[in-house]
């Protein structure tokens, strides 16, 4: 397997290789230069100082907590959807598939508006919740709902592909040996699909961390309550540019960590196969 890979990489004439190298170089520069520009503008002292700023600290902890909770919710609700869509044929499957994918192509501001129309004080559902004294819009719960709405497809798609890649032979063997469906799922299917499940979960966490448009529409912008990192970055951009840059660098560092986690997981999978 690795030998054929190496041969493909070595093959090809020189002009083609130069062209490919140029395209790769340009792509790396295109993404690398803005990131470098951001990092160069923030000296370490400024970064450390900004970590004392209550606005930065509130935004950081709120972002990590909400994105973490959102990821757990997405795993809880997304796993059954991903599994039945990978394994079963049922009427309306295409519709369920399309609906769960829709948030990817929907502009986040539209998602936020839709959530407000549904769960706001005068919303389709929200007006009845309001009668019961339940408030959702402009609370931390709204932040989590916006993140779940926008970020769930990243997990569901990845998990579905991973489940589809698990051979039914192993599941059948487990069932033949007397394991129930749930036990088969947790002790055979999940361990075999774990890499995809985890990288899907990490992508969802990263997307939730970066959520802006739906959050500001549905949850509003209030420090310590609904002001996540992207909102604080945008808010600070209108006044304290240093705080904004420092927050941006923190977000970039977290994103880097997230990608390294995915890379490590994927490499582990390649080593296993």
């Amino acid at each position, binding site marked *: 397997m690795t030998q054929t890979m190496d041969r493909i990489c070595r093959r090809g004439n020189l002009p083609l290789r130069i062209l490919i190298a140029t395209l790769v170089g340009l792509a790396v520069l295109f993404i690398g230069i803005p990131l470098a520009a951001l990092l160069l503008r923030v000296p370490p002292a400024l970064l450390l100082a900004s970590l004392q700023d209550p606005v930065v600290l509130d935004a950081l902890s709120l972002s990590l907590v909400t994105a973490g909770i959102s990821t757990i919710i997405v795993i809880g609700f997304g796993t059954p959807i991903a599994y039945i869509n990978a394994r079963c044929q049922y009427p309306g*499957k*295409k519709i369920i598939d399309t609906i769960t994918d829709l948030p990817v192509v929907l502009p986040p501001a539209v998602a936020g508006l839709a959530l*407000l*129309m549904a769960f*706001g*004080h*005068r919303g389709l559902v929200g007006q009845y919740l309001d009668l019961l004294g339940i408030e959702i*819009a*402009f609370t931390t719960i709204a932040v989590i709902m916006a993140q779940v709405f926008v970020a769930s497809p990243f997990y569901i798609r990845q998990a579905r592909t991973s489940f589809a890649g698990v051979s039914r032979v192993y599941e059948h063997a487990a069932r033949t040996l007397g394991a129930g469906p749930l036990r088969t799922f947790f002790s055979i299917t999940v361990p075999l699909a774990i890499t995809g499940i985890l990288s899907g979960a990490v992508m969802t966490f990263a997307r939730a961390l970066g959520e802006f448009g739906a959050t*500001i*529409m549905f*949850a*509003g*912008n*209030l*420090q310590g309550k*609904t*002001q996540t990192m992207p909102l604080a970055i*945008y*808010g*600070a*951009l*209108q*006044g*304290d*540019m240093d705080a904004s840059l420092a927050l941006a660098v923190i977000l970039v560092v977290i994103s880097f960590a997230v990608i390294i986690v995915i890379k490590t997981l994927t490499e582990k999978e390649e080593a296993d196969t």
Partner: protein
Amino acid sequence: MTKSTSLIALAAGIAILALLVAAGCTATQPAETAVPDQNELVVFTAASLTGAMTDIAKAYETAHPNTKIVLNFDGSQALRTQIEQGARADLFLSANTKHMMALQGEGLIVNDSVGIFAKNKLALIVPKDNPAGITGLLDLSRPGIRMVMGTKEVPFGDYTRQALQKMADDPACGPEYRDAVMANVISEEPTVTSLVAKIRLGEADAGIAYASDVSEGDRAFVTTIAIPDQYNVIASYPLGIVRESVAQDRAAAFAEYISSPDGAAILSRYGFTPAGR
């Protein structure tokens, strides 16, 4: 799902997209062909001027078919940052003299082109059915009122805090009044448009913004309550030509039109007080 049903679904999907594209094309074509020789003028405009400047630009384009006005709306600070970072702009309309002066200080604006073209007062904005029964500033401190205001960084949020401070300094209200109002804030909005949208949707009971922020379209859904001058913070809107602009003359002509009686009439229709230059 059978092959034929998925083919039908695919065909339906393509048909929907094709219809939308066709609708988009027919809608934009006349505008493109009507003005054959377009000279673009890029105007960076404070978000609070959205309605007024859209109408002024339309009126100007009708009178001067050779000029195509491209309006870029955002908060004044964001626009200032964009100009500082070298964005292509010909004219800058700010909601705050601070940002204009900063750009002048950096040598990015033609100094003698700068002038105040409009003034604006803060007002209280409530939904039309006014579920919280708000009649004036004093109601804002009642517990349970869902209040929205601008962030402290944007001009209208800054002015709102200044107005609340003026009330806090007045012995009739006191600092407890201001603290109670601030405790009722459910969201700090980065733009006036998002603030008015939340009141219009009935998601907030009250907000403070410029009198001009209630557009003709919004007036059916929200009510404006005047804030007494003694507590008000009257905003000045300056304009200035960007030094790097390659269309200095066209920018100057459009700037003059904004201050002309035609421009002033549109500005007052949107709640601004036009200022003679």
